[in-house]
């Protein structure tokens, strides 16, 4: 088959995936409101079909270009969207058995894909020599997996903030607003508070509502972000190694490097906040939101508006 044939398949499969995600998103939001099991199954099937079509699209794109399909912004966005949905299905539905968040995860992917196809599309092309390195494969793979997880964790954090606000307005404030640290012991280092990964809302009874309780949302978001953070760190390190090979310097404060560092700092701040009493819950979540914005800047703004070495990765 010719390259253009594969490119064609890629585009068609992309469209199938996009519409499946849109259908899945609508079904999931319907399920969120009305709790019909059949609707959930429709949503799940649509999302799964989307994942399959999307995988086909990305593989076909790689065949058409004759290289791994993450060489420019369009391809990167597409892969990010796929990974967010896949991570949602595996982590949130599979591991935590939460069904109500599908609409939010799918909405993120639909949005990302719509931007990709509308503004970022370029035909499959070979890479310029500077991008031709196996460190690049490792760097880009870890960056894309970690950004998809950071995005998923951030989306869940947004839902958490909404739900928490709702729970707060519905329940009287908890006494002294935190878990009771009866079992704090002497040898625990002073800066290291007990219950680092527990939400302060743990003591509050989970009430049944539209969404999982704030405590559960908070925990799932934390786990996702805490899993993504080392991967992001690894991505920055491999990026530095690649830069050393390609440009002869491991770190040059190029805008993309700078913003990946800023994002890293903000999420590091989030993890510290989680381990600090008085900063758990909402405050930490707000830091995660700042991190999300920084991630989006790292991801879109740097390539589109700020000039630097990474900008030749193109749109």
């Amino acid at each position, binding site marked *: 088959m010719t390259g253009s044939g594969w490119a064609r398949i890629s585009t068609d499969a992309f469209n199938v995936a996009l519409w499946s995600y849109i259908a899945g998103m609508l079904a999931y939001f319907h399920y969120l409101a009305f709790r019909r099991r059949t609707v959930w199954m429709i949503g799940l099937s649509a999302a799964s079909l989307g994942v399959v079509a999307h995988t086909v699209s990305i593989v076909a794109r790689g065949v058409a270009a004759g290289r791994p399909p993450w060489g420019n912004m369009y391809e990167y966005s597409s892969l990010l969207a796929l990974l967010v949905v896949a991570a949602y299905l595996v982590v949130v539905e599979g591991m935590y058995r939460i069904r109500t968040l599908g609409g939010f995860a799918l909405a993120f992917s639909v949005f990302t894909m719509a931007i990709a196809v509308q503004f970022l599309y370029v035909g499959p092309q070979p890479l310029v020599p500077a991008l031709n390195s196996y460190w690049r494969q490792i760097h880009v793979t870890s960056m894309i997996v970690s950004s998809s997880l950071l995005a998923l964790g951030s989306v869940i954090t947004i839902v958490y903030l909404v739900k928490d606000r709702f729970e707060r307005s519905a329940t009287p404030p908890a006494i002294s607003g935190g878990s009771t640290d009866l*079992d704090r012991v002497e040898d625990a280092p002073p800066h*290291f508070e007990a219950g*680092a990964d*527990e939400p302060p809302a743990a003591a509050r009874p989970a009430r049944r509502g539209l969404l999982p309780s704030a405590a559960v949302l908070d925990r799932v978001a934390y786990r996702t972000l805490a899993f993504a953070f080392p991967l992001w760190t*690894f991505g920055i390190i491999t990026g530095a190694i690649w830069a050393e090979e390609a440009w002869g310097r491991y770190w040059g404060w190029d805008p993309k490097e700078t913003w990946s560092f800023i994002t890293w*700092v*903000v999420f590091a701040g989030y993890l*510290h906040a989680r381990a600090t009493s008085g900063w758990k819950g909402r405050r930490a979540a707000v830091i995660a939101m700042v991190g999300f914005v920084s991630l989006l800047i790292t991801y879109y703004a740097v390539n589109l508006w700020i000039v630097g*070495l990474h900008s030749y990765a193109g749109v």
Partner: protein
Amino acid sequence: MRTALVLLLILALASVAGSLVPQVGVADARIAQTFRDHPLRAQIYDRLGLFDVFGSWWFTLIYVLLFVSLVACLIPRTRAAVRNVRSRPQPARELDAMRHYAEHPVPEPPGRVIERARRVLGRRLFRVEASPADMTDGSPLALAADKGLAREVGSLLFHWAFLLILVGVVWGRGTGFSGRAVIVEGQTWTEAHANYDGQIREGRLFGEDHSGLRITVDDFEARYRVPSGIPEEFVTRARLADADGRQLGSVDIRVNHPAAAEGVKIYQFGYGWAPVIEVTKAGEPIASGPVVCEQDRAPEGVSQLQLPWNCVVKLPTLEPQVGIAFTLWPDIRGLTSLLETGTSMPMLVRFDPVMTFVAYRGDLRADQPVRTNDLDTSVLQRWTEGAVGAGETKEIGNGIEVTFEDLRNYTVLEIKRDRGLWLLLAAAILILVGLLPALYTSRRKVWVTAEADGDGSLVRVGGFALQRRPQFEEEFVRLVDAIAGAPRTAPEREEVRT
């Protein structure tokens, strides 16, 4: 910790500024543009060091303060951690006051139960410490166990590693150098300070110990896709020899594939054209050899490949002195396109190369410091002009002839030594190795006592976790079952269904 975190956030904010304002070395053209379009703003930025955020004194101040507060924070933590690792788990009283507590009657005597508890906990990688057996006063047998020291140790490794990064950067930059070598095809270049023509940065601790490496460039090739102009390959084919002239073998230096020899790394950085020009007067050669040509920076919207190459041949021995400014078109179609349509076309391959030239007469001012490819035309008179194709000879006048003998490439190699890289790699590994347990393990403590009770004994288990308490709740149930030797009665893992 709070101070360090605040400083880290300030560092991030400073970086934001550094990514929004064009930076020296990254976007010099845009800095110049800011000075043209917004002189006042540019002045203010310049005063504040905003054009060079990452090299400014206040950026340095922030990260020095950050490292100071980090160290101040880490030293007591490290002491406490060392104490914790050295000390054994401590016995506890009042197990029933713990967050998790269970008691079970078991048929075995206390000694057997404690032995099993030790096995069970040991298998789960707890550190176990039994209280000295003292059956005489009837007090129960007891053991204390804990787990998860890796969390704090990992966290400390992670944080100390950043100090190692600082050391690696300072040491690497301080003792190293990086410079650019311009080598024409067929020439041999020796790695020594003088040969960089000033294009070198040497660290403060650098001991002038250049490697003396000799690089002989046999060939350079730049390949582009036609007609898109997308670069496909840049490769320098070279032979290396050490300072004593011993051959070290041939290397291909490509983008992304540097060569390494004699402690230095060699990167493909750029390239250009070097026409071989011979100038004769009355048949006698007065200048001969390859001349390195340079390009102006392409303005917005114009490809660098559309621009011709400029170089100068100076003839100070003639009376009056003569300077010739050449403009090289490696592909004649670039020039014809410019003459016919007003815009040049990208020159992707060598094709009938041609040079136009303007000759000047007068005083070259050879006593003034002027760049090789600059001609100070203030005291020179324009004399003649013309064009010469490859292989052709043109007379300028007065019996002076110019021959365009050959067109060669020159390659620009970035040559670098950084002895801090190993430290940085080690730090990167420590960061990852430390981060995983710091995030994913949790500190747990468990105490077990067993007391004679009729034929068997009564076993009491108490414990708590400092992190990941929901998981420990389940783990504790399983632990108690295993210690009591009971069949698995643990409830199925509770699923969060909503």
